[in-house]
């Protein structure tokens, strides 16, 4: 280490004391910027010549390399988000330099953020809140999906995984920035912009390719992106090559995952009914386990199989899951010369799922390049991803939690022998299946090719005027196939029809931006004007064909079917046209005012309604620069206040929703006989754009020499006249109606703190905290004061969206459960509002402790204040696997704290009426919906990483390996939840819903693995 410091000091000293009288000398400086602490190259450092700032800056590549033209005696300024800015005077002849930067977290004053249209802006002029997640922070947990890697790292950003935690190999992700703005629950996602190109999804992006993600919160920050930006924007900047020496980086991470947090099950009573054993019943309402051999299942060829009537040693349900393995391998190359750079990467991710037989593979390659032709700068990005997924539909888990504890699943893994009791024709119960058979027999495969390419031309006409033309294409082709193997049985419930469904989905987006940029100074005023035009074309074609009646067990082709072929093709087109402008005026580099405006035209609305304009204004004020008394304060290093106002138009309507269309239903056509029926969602030709009005104000402070950063914001949004499918009385003829109605408001407080607690030569301790509170309220709806969104999720005026409302027990005034003369409980007449299903309080806490080459980082996450419920629970009651059902030993009991209703309507304590406690009683109990609900509060250790970077001195001599890091990573390592929550991981959502644990839901997984990274 000392060697480096010596070098650093010599270098700095040398530069500082070089006499300035030396004659000017043109130099092409090639060098590398390294982290002072660990000697690692720093990517993304912006370097410019102080004396000639207008000639622009260069950015270092992934290993810190750069090259820049300058004169000797000029000063190079090095800027990076996470490091203290450094200025270095160029000495004569110093064409090869190694420069160092000192780490500092999120230095607000000089940070650059990726603003709208992918244009870099100084953070100080941004009048809205933007938070940046860099490559290192994003990849701390080595998460395969970059969206999931963002979880809990940004204040006000809530990421929910449905399928990560459901153990499936293709994660589904729900992303919400500052709450929900639309009653249309599918229309609350932010926009994803990769290098200036809006893409529909970034789930398949290689997180290692990402240099940084700027999260522009709220509609204001994203006004220029058009309507889609109303929910905020995730601006992704991918890595670029550096000028100078080429570099190769290789890494591998392998993770092992196991399910945890299963809803508990009883293990005292086994299969049967009414306390009597039955060899063929799957309910756990039989007698207590007695450890004897009993008949099991039907006779097979006259032979009666037997099985031990006892619970398996460990939870038998765990036997139906495997250990998942995720392996990521990465290789990247980068380099460049004077006129161009390149960055190339290949990533391979293989996942073996926790459900037997599930697997996926993702291989992605990226090529980013730049090339300069005089005044024309060109850049091009190409990203290709091939994704293969092979899973079982819905998973066998739903059949497992209501089968009894005596089924030794391990002995049924091999089901193919037709004479074994594991075979689906002999399985002990006809309606519950052998989970391994289910997993093997129903296969869902998908092959997906994603190609995303972009070309950008940037031509500087003069030093104050340039034109940018950017055209991009995103194409995703998915071939899918779902097969179910035929199983013929004389017993109806055992029958499985052989089926195959083949699908082909082709989506293409073309996006075209033409931007004129003017930048001029007038005395102390700096102005920048952007004028642009955007064209968007989305085209989709989906084809599906299938046969539900295959003739053979092993030929999955619609050609080998009986009956008719089923199939459909759907074509969809969407077009939009936008014209926009942004004017920023800065005064003395501390006071800024930005005006934005955009006129959009969209194809999905009627001619009269399809054009709409929306404006925005924002301002920021760096008071530490403006007020002389605050300058050079040792306490307050930087301070900025900002505010903004926006009214953003949005059209969430899908194409072709203005008119009532008819389709052939009910088996039609029958030969030449056609039969059309109208859709049952009432369309509305008069739909108009909806508008979201939002305000935001906040401040950013850098304290104690920027060792502590405080970022606080208050935001308010009000969405009115929303376009959504309102549930209407079926007596209108329609079940839903497309309307402009409803109003939702959000009040949000966000706080982000980031501090370097200890920072010296050997040690660094960083702590970060982010917090947000969202008060979301439904103000108006369409008909009535509430509507049902999905299951027990409701939109209710005056409550948060969505709110959990369900039936409770019939209770007396004191809240005691009322039982009737037979000891039966009953449902309350009305449903009870329990509370919001999205957590209003979000906390993220991160810490990073480094000692020399060792680094430990941890990411904690807490969400408080919401409710969840489960559909697994009632099923477990009905099947007798729920632990509550054995609380009274399956005998009659007096329900504690219950009352009986007297003739006069009063209630008295129940001291004598016994409740039966049989299947019917507990089924009724489990159907009381509040029994299935719990507070969804949790605290979890989301990511833990321990790594060691070999000291540069060790690697110094061999000259091949520049850098080597080894580490351990863990995800989801522990969780603390509300004591009443026996449902499962509150973060695990079903299919983009909120607070809802489906009967299909697979338990969460936790993972642990190791990682290695070498740079050559």
């Amino acid at each position, binding site marked *: 280490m000392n060697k480096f410091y010596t070098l650093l000091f010599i270098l700095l000293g040398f530069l500082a004391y070089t006499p300035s009288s030396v004659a000017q000398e043109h130099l092409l400086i090639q060098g590398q910027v390294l982290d002072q602490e660990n000697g690692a190259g720093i990517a993304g450092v912006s370097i410019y010549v102080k004396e000639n700032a207008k000639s622009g800056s260069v950015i270092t590549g992934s290993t810190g390399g750069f090259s820049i033209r300058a004169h000797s005696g000029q000063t190079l300024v090095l800027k990076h988000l996470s490091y203290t800015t450094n200025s270095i005077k160029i000495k004569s002849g110093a064409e090869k330099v190694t420069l160092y930067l000192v780490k500092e977290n999120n230095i607000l004053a000089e940070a650059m953020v990726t603003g709208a249209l992918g244009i870099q802006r100084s953070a100080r002029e941004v009048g809205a809140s933007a938070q940046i997640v860099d490559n290192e922070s994003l990849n701390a947990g080595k998460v395969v999906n970059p969206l999931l890697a963002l979880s809990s790292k940004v204040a006000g950003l809530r990421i929910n995984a449905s399928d990560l935690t459901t153990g499936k190999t293709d994660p589904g992700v729900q992303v919400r920035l500052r709450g929900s703005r639309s009653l249309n629950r599918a229309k609350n996602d932010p926009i994803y912009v990769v290098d200036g190109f809006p893409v529909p999804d970034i789930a398949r992006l290689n997180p290692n390719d990402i240099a940084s993600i700027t999260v522009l919160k709220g509609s204001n920050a994203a006004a220029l992106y058009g309507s889609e930006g109303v929910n905020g924007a995730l601006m992704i900047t991918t890595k670029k090559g550096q000028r100078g020496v080429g570099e190769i980086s290789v890494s591998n991470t392998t993770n092992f995952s196991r399910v945890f947090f299963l809803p508990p099950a009883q293990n005292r009573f086994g299969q049967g009914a009414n306390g009597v054993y039955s060899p063929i019943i799957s309910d756990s309402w039989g007698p207590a386990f007695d450890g004897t051999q009993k008949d099991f299942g039907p006779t097979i060829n006259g032979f009666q199989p037997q099985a031990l009537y006892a619970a398996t040693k460990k939870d038998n349900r765990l036997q139906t899951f495997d250990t998942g393995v995720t392996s990521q391998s990465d290789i990247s190359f980068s380099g460049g010369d004077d006129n161009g750079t390149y960055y190339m990467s290949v990533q391979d991710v293989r996942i073996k799922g926790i459900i037997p037989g599930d697997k996926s593979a993702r291989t992605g390659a990226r090529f980013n390049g730049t090339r300069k032709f005089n005044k024309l700068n060109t850049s091009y990005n190409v990203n290709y991803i091939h994704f293969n997924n092979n899973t079982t539909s819905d998973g066998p888990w739903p059949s497992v939690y209501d089968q009894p504890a005596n089924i030794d699943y391990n002995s049924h893994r091999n089901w193919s022998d037709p004479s074994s009791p594991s075979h689906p024709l002999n399985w002990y119960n006809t309606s519950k299946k052998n989970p391994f058979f289910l997993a093997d027999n129903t296969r869902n495969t998908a092959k997906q090719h994603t190609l995303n390419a972009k070309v950008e031309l940037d031509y500087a006409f003069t030093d104050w005027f340039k034109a940018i033309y950017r055209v991009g294409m995103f194409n995703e082709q998915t071939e899918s196939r779902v097969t179910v193997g035929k199983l013929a049985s004389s017993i109806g419930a055992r029958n499985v029809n052989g089926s195959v469904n083949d699908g082909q989905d082709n989506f293409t987006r073309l996006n075209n931006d033409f931007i004129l940029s003017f930048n001029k100074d007038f005395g102390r005023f700096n102005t920048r004007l952007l004028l642009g035009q955007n064209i968007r074309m989305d085209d989709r074609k989906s084809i599906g064909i299938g046969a539900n009646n295959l003739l053979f067990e092993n030929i999955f082709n619609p050609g080998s079917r009986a009956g008719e072929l089923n199939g459909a093709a759907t074509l969809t087109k969407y077009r939009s046209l936008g014209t926009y402008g942004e004017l920023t005026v800065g005064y003395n580099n501390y006071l800024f005012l930005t005006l934005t405006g955009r006129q959009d035209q969209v194809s999905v609305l009627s001619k009269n309604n399809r054009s709409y304009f929306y404006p925005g204004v924002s301002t920021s004020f760096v008071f530490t620069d403006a007020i002389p008394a605050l300058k050079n304060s040792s306490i307050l290093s930087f301070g900025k206040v900002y505010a903004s106002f926006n009214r953003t138009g949005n059209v969430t309507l899908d194409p072709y929703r203005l008119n009532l269309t008819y389709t052939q239903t009910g088996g*039609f056509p029958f030969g030449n*006989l056609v039969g059309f029926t109208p859709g049952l969602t009432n369309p509305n030709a008069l739909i108009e754009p909806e508008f979201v009005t939002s305000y935001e104000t906040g401040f950013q402070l850098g304290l104690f020499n920027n060792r502590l950063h405080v970022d606080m914001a208050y935001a308010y949004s009000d969405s009115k006249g929303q376009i959504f499918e309102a549930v209407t009385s079926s007596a209108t003829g329609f079940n839903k109606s497309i309307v402009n109605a409803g109003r939702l408001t959000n009040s949000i407080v966000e706080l982000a703190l980031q501090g370097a607690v200890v920072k010296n030569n050997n040690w660094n301790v960083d702590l970060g905290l982010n917090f947000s509170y969202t008060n979301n309220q439904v103000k108006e709806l369409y008909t009535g004061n509430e509507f049902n969104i999905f299951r027990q999720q409701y939109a209710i005026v005056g409550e948060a969206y969505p709110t959990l409302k369900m039936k409770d027990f019939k209770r007396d005034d004191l809240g005691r459960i009322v039982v009737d003369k037979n000891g039966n409980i009953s449902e309350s007449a009305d449903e009870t509002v329990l509370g919001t299903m999205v957590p209003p309080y979000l906390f993220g806490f991160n810490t990073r402790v480094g000692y020399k080459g060792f680094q430990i980082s941890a990411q904690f996450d807490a969400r408080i204040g919401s409710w969840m419920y489960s559909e697994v629970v009632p099923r477990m009651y009905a099947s007798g696997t729920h632990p509550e059902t054995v609380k009274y030993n399956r005998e009659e009991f007096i329900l504690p704290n219950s009352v009986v209703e007297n003739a006069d309507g009063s209630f008295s304590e129940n001291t004598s009426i016994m409740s039966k406690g049989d299947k019917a009683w507990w089924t009724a109990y489990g159907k009381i919906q509040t029994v299935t609900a719990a507070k969804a509060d949790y605290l979890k250790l989301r990511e833990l990483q321990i790594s060691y970077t070999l000291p540069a001195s060790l690697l110094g001599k061999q000259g091949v390996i520049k850098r080597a890091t080894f580490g351990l990573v863990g995800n989801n390592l522990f969780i603390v939840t509300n004591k009443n929550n026996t449902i499962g991981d509150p973060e695990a959502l079903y299919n983009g819903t909120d607070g809802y644990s489906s009967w299909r839901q697979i338990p969460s997984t936790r993972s642990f693995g190791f990682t290695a990274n070498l740079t050559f």
Partner: protein
Amino acid sequence: MKNYSIKLALLGLFTWTATSCSNFLEVNVNPNAPVGENLTLASKLPAALVATATQEATQLNQLGAFWSGYWGTSSEGLNAFYNEKIYSGQGIRDVRDGIPIWENSYNYLLYYKLMLDQSEQEGALFYAGISKIMMAWHFLQLVDIYNNVPYEEALLGSAVNRPKYEDGKAVYEKSINLITAGIQQINAATVAPKQDDIIFAGNKKLWSKFGNTIKLRALLRQSEQASQAAYIRTEIDKIVKEGSGFLSSSESALVQPGYLNTTGKLNPFYENFYRNSGGATVVNYTNIRPTNYVVEKLKGLSDPRLEALYVAVNGSYKGVDFGDPTVSTASNASNTSAFKGPLENGNKPAGLLKSSSQAAVLLSSFESLFLQAEAAQRGWIAGTATKYYADAISESFKYIMNENYNTAAYLQQKEVSLAEAPAPIARIIEQKWLALNSINSIQAWADYRRLGLPTIPNSLSAPNPTARPQRLMYPETENSTNREQVIAQGSDDILRTKVWWMK
């Protein structure tokens, strides 16, 4: 030069993007599906009729079959149809696990309402008449199940978002009037539908008879309301005056679009309760079994239909008790009688299950004849009850036995003969009940609620031995979208609140 060409190219791009937009946004015409205006009535009618027939054969037939003593479940089906077995009003009205009779009925009503609007615009009287008759069909069903329901304010889309409920009796009257108007329009029509009328192929007379039969059914429903006597008289007179009469022998209202052995295209009863297109039996076929009550009834009458309806187990016919919560080997699927289908009948059509392409029964000739028998017995219409009764039984035998069965011996039995019946109405209803078995079971449930006949045993899982379902509760969807109206109707308790025509 190089610079110049780049500038030119940029200028060109800009011009292109700025000017090529005149038709750029005109892409919102749905290429995947037609709008109603582009479709003829003939391309809409068949789908609506199939929807109605499917609801009758499956959703309504199933509920009716459990609640009028036809069906129970085998041990394998112990957990199936739980809401029906315990009479859970809340369970049945549930959005998800419930039975969406309300929602489906109004959706189908919308199909007919949009056809009615179109036919009035086009002056297509026949289609207007059919639409009216079919709308009345659904409104009457809705009242039978939910009592007060929206009528005038219903089916107006977003023009009336919270349709007002009307008295069940008023809806009955209005529906009967709708049929009267429909028959008039059909009779006045000069152009008739052709193969798209998959019930009567454009036969005016049969449509009028069908309309009159539905009216008769609705009037008989009111038999226990003494105050309705005068109204019934007036309406019967109108039917007589119209002159077409009622559906008679060989005049069933059958829906036949050309069912075939492909998923989704099979006869709905066959596909739901017997076998799928692959020929594999469905879960319902294992779970559903005839009740001991119906089996014993048929046995007691030496009814030959027994053998055509069910499969014998070791030479005898065995049923189950509806709602039996206990598990016994005797109730296993393999030890009880399943429905007999062609595959259990030497590939010949059986009683209920004839082939995957059999027509669906909307209203059978035998039901019409039993209705006439009862009306004649009550002195409402001309003709002798015994004749109608004998014809009805003969039509039922013909349908079940698939041949012109000689019913003379059967009719002579003391327990069958109407002349010897101590309570003729009860006898008519008992035979009607036997005939409607698993075909239009919902009508048998209505008869039970009207007359308490026949003496069907209660579900063994009933909340108490005397509790019986009287109606269905208003669905959850209605509670959340049209709550004030639901509340204004008072109690909709499944066990206590009756439909207006019940005693």
